[in-house]
Structures are given as C-alpha cells and as structure tokens.
C-alpha cells in the first residue's frame, strides 16, 4: 500500500478501536486453548477497521487455524457488496508468542491487511501485536488502540 492511500493510519501503525480489540480478545479467550480467527472489515482504501467478524476455526486446533471455505466466501462477498475489504485479519496463538509463524507467513495472502496476533498463553494478560506480511516479508507495526472511532 502506498503512502497516499493511508488515511486512518500513518504508515507502520494499526489504529483500532478499543471496543474491537476487546471483542477480539474475548473471542480468543472464549476459544482458548484452540486458536481463534477472524476479520475486521473497513471501507476499501480507508485503512480503518470498523466491523468485527469473528470466524469459525474450521480446523478447531490448538496450533492451526483455517477459515471455513464457505463462510470465507460468504463474508468476502458481503464485504464486496459493502465496498469493504479485510483491514485486519487476526488469529490467536494459545501457547506461544504473538509473532507470525512460518505457516502464518506462507499463507498470508492479503497484502493490504494488517495481520493481528493475540497470544493467550498467559491466563491474565494478552500480548497483542500487528504485522504486515507481503511476499514473505514480515514488518511489525505499532498497535494504536483508541476510544470511540467506531459506534458500538
């Protein structure tokens, strides 16, 4: 993504509403010890994540996640109809750090998305980190959690 396309965020930062982060953490805790996964949609080109969509982990695994292919199609079509794109794609690691694994890097296929990882290995605190993954190259970015950019 070129610098001119970034409206909601300066380069190297994911700006995201606290209510959405809270919902992602709650989803990750609910599915623990399995990995949780989902999307936050936003208007195309806005780089602003607005609509949280928790997805099923079709693999139901503690070490792997995979979107259900039919849910994936339905949600991507819905975004298309609403002129949205996946601004954030998130998943949890339940026993390791919130850093992309080689598997995460191999599969990362949305070059415009922020890949958000949540580690739930500690019972009372979460590690939340965000990355760009483009052509196998991982770039960590700051996570800027803000209040009330999204109506609850």
């Amino acid at each position, binding site marked *: 993504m070129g610098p001119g396309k970034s409206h909601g965020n300066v380069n190297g930062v994911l700006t995201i509403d606290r209510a959405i982060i809270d919902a992602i953490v709650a989803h990750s805790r609910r599915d623990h010890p399995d*990995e949780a996964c989902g999307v936050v949609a936003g208007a195309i080109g806005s780089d602003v994540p607005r609509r949280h969509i928790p997805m099923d982990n079709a693999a139901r695994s503690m070490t792997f996640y995979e*979107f259900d*292919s039919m849910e994936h*199609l339905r949600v*991507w*079509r819905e975004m298309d109809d609403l002129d949205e794109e996946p601004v954030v794609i998130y998943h949890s690691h339940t*026993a*390791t750090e919130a850093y992309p694994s080689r598997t*995460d890097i191999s599969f990362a296929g949305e070059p415009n998305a922020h890949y958000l990882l949540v580690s739930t290995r500690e019972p009372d605190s979460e590690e939340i980190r965000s990355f760009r993954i483009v052509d196998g190259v991982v770039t960590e970015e700051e996570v800027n959690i803000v209040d009330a950019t999204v109506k609850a």
Partner: protein
Amino acid sequence: MAIEVRVPTILRSYTGGAKIVEGAGDTLIELIDDLDAKHNGLKGRLITAEGGLHRFVNIYVNDEDVRFLGALDAKLKDGDSITILPAVAGGALGFAAAAALMGK
C-alpha cells in the same frame, strides 16, 4: 463461451490490475489453461508442480467450493462465475504439519 473470474488482490499483478477477467473452458483445468495463456504465470499460483490445486487458494464455482465439485475436473458452463480467494490459514504449528492437516 464466457466465464467470469474474480481475481483477488494478490493475483492482480498477473491481470494488469483487473479484478474481473473472462475465460473459457469446459472444466476448471481448461479454464485455468485459457487464463494462463492470457495472464502468463497465473496457473503456477493456482496449481502445484504435481498438478493439484494449490492449498494457498480457494476456488469457487458460483457458490460451491471446487473441492466438492471434482476439483480441477469440475465441469463449467457458459455464464458460470468463478471466485478465487487466498486461503486464510496459519497458526503456531509447523508448516509441513499444517499442510498435512489441511489434507489438500
């Protein structure tokens, strides 16, 4: 015979940026060969060296995952709409084990 194909962002470098392209073929593999003739290199992103569907992509005919329609042998007809999406998957597991788990 025209079949509409929706191309995801990550593969639009092969289609000159086009989000929707047209192709022809009686089966998915014929369509992919036709697309590759117009958009050189696309086939390699959809099909492995062994000739199977790549696990990094999901391909749909209308509303159905082609894996349930005979994969590369899936029959196509005029007016069908094909959607290609990058698979969203990953996790802490090592890559080889993850690939085996997906069974693709």
